[in-house]
């Protein structure tokens, strides 16, 4: 798994959603002129009134300066149609002024609300935003196909993930150490291919895939890596079977959720990049499978997962930036060729059997691939 962990992936999704929502890429938080035409709109929030110096503004960046002139802690909201929150500022204590800067791309009818006591519907008033909506329709058929295509890939991975994790757990419980050791990297392959998807489900990912070094104080060591340690280092323990059962339960839960998740094209592009980051920070250093040293299996799976996400987006990339599409093909092929050299039997050499030069060659190839992959999101976000 990635180093730290739980809510990170969720917040990442939110950040992506924000990016997608506000249109053109790159503007992010640093763009935009905050004090748009006319300067900030002062809001006087009292216990029984919510006075604005203006009830109208041009589309774009609108700044409110909210002063609490009442006796209770208050909040201020700007709502769009259907009470969609455009922006809000909370916890404004009496006597305090706080600022809310909102991006409002579309003209139309909005509502402001002061909420003394921070409860209820608040003191509402209409607010008009003038100006044309400049956003283009977002219905790109190819992008829609991309997300559907990747969804099919995820669905194709979760079933063997469930099956192989089940076999692995059964072998652990039956005390069949050699069989369990052989199944460990196989089950993980399906996991690692869809890891960014799995990571978006809060605390399930650490329960399934936390590394011992990344545990929080007091956090129980569970999941794949705990069983890895049991199998390779300490020998099966009294509670290994219980850990294996829990792993199966957690994986089943992930599978249910993964089938239902709806990804945006941007999330796909970022997922492809995150898989490469995983390789660069975890697998190339041999930190992922520190007891079994089967890191190259995970390496291969991350690259395959990344390639699947890129492949889903490829028609769009090929259309908008043919040179990037070509670079991606070449760099994936280069990583692939290096991995093929390390094949051993059904799988791969142990990390500990690689020479420093071989590790360095992997690192360089992953860096070379990481650069073009990092450009996919931008291309996908273009309108």
């Amino acid at each position, binding site marked *: 798994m990635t*180093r730290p962990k739980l809510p990170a992936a969720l*917040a990442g999704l939110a950040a992506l959603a924000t990016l997608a929502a*506000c249109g053109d890429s790159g503007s*992010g938080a640093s763009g935009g002129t905050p004090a748009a035409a006319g300067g900030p709109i002062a809001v006087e929030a009292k216990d029984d009134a919510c006075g604005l110096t203006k009830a109208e503004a041009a589309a774009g960046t609108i700044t409110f300066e909210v002063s609490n002139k009442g006796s209770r802690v208050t909040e201020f909201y700007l709502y769009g149609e259907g009470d969609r929150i455009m922006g809000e*500022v909370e916890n404004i204590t009496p006597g305090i002024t706080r600022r809310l800067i909102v991006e409002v791309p579309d003209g139309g009818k909005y509502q402001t609300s002061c909420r003394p006591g921070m409860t209820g519907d608040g003191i509402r008033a209409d607010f008009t935003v003038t100006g044309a909506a400049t956003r283009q329709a977002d219905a790109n058929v190819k992008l829609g196909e991309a997300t559907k295509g990747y969804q099919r890939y995820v669905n194709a991975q979760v079933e063997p993930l469930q099956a192989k994790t089940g076999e692995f757990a059964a072998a652990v419980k039956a005390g069949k150490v050699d069989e369990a050791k052989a199944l460990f990297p196989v089950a993980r392959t399906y996991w690692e291919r869809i890891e960014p998807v799995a990571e978006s489900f809060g605390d399930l990912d650490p329960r399934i895939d936390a590394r011992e070094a990344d545990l*929080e104080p007091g956090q129980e060591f569970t999941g794949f890596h705990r069983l890895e340690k049991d199998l390779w280092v300490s020998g099966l323990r009294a509670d290994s079977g219980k850990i294996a059962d829990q792993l199966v339960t957690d994986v089943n839960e992930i599978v249910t959720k993964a089938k239902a998740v709806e990804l945006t094209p941007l999330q796909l592009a970022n997922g492809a*990049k995150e898989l490469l980051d995983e390789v660069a*920070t975890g697998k190339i250093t041999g930190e992922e499978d520190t007891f079994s040293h089967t890191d190259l299996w995970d390496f291969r799976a991350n690259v395959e997962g990344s390639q699947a996400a890129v492949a889903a987006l490829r028609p769009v990339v090929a259309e908008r930036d043919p040179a990037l599409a070509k670079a991606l093909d070449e760099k994936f092929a280069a990583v692939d060729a290096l991995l093929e050299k390390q094949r051993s039997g059904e799988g791969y050499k142990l990390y500990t059997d690689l020479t420093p030069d071989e590790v360095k060659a992997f690192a360089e190839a992953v*860096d070379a691939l990481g650069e073009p992959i990092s450009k996919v999101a*931008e291309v996908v976000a273009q309108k």
Partner: protein
Amino acid sequence: MSDRNGGVSRRRLFGLAGAGAAVAGLGATAGVLATARDPQVRATAVDTSAPVPFRGPHQAGIVTPAQDRMHFVAFDVTTRKREELVALLKDWTLAAERMTAGEEATQGGAVGGAPQAPPADTGEALDLPASALTLTIGFGPSLFDDRFGLADKRPEALVELPRFRGDDLDARRTGGDICVQACANDPQVAVHAIRNLARIGFGKVAVRWSQLGFGRTSSTSTTQATPRNLFGFKDGTNNLKAEDPTALAEHVWVTEGPQWIVGGSYLVARRIRMHIEIWDRTSLTEQEAIVGRAKGTGAPLGQTAEFDQVDLHVRGPGGVPRIAEDAHIRLASAESLKGARILRRGYNFTDGSDGFGHLDAGLFFICFNRDTRTQFVPMQQALSANDKMMEYLEHNGSGHFACPPGLSQGGYWGEGLLG
């Protein structure tokens, strides 16, 4: 060149250069003088080559405006004799006071001694001005074992740091009985100071680990612009500043524990490797979301200018917090940490490469606080557990040291502890 040989001493050279600089800088510094009454603060605000007073109520190098360069060293004490340790600390104090004044480690040390003898000063800082060199000493928990009978003088706050989630500490970059932080505006001056202290210490101490920092990542004075770290972001905007003595009294200067540490401060050092190659492939939007600030202006998300107050209660579309729940500045904010703040004094570093085609680069974090147990530790626990930035960081070195208060005339380093 030594005084005895009739050359230009380092001090006199700086005096000449300083005069010109002072005139040129007059307009810019007029306002500074009014706010910075502490001579250790004022000196570098006026002239980056001038000396910073070595003695004062507090050690220099804490609220002194952060110099541009750093050389930090941790020593193991190798002698078992307390009197040898005391003698070394006295020798160090003499040399340190001279070097911070822009002089050689000993009078005529570089070329003024006996020709048959190796020079007493290593010489690479001859002709260089004082460059605001400060030398700050601290004592680590391990010094308080049974070797020197100091166990009952160990402050309770001088704890062994707990293990933080994701720590990957290298024993060769961790711990130490004594630390010295050398900061200067010329890297050669900082290195010269550490080198000569190490040399004076042979047989009594040995270098355990050391770290160079090439660029400051914090401002410790309102006279300074906020610098950027290797992620390209302004760092330490909300740092404690020398001009706010009330906050320093509350968060930096020790008031409890054995008498020898009262008026001092606890230093925490962390070598934080940054996976800059991975970071550089991350979109601007995500970088800003991780930090919680705009990369260009340094403004907190949802605000417009760098020093606008961080408002954790502003939400954007869909009620999503503008500063994410796992954003660095939210987790590190005093508001999220029950008021805990620290004085940061870190430096950017690059130490060659890692053998995998990547730069071994990062931030050598240094902070000073009044009680590490209630300030740095909870902050780092929050960050190591939840900070999205941790995905790009690896803490691989660590140290905790008690820095005694400053020296009065005639006093020597560690006198309160060992005297």
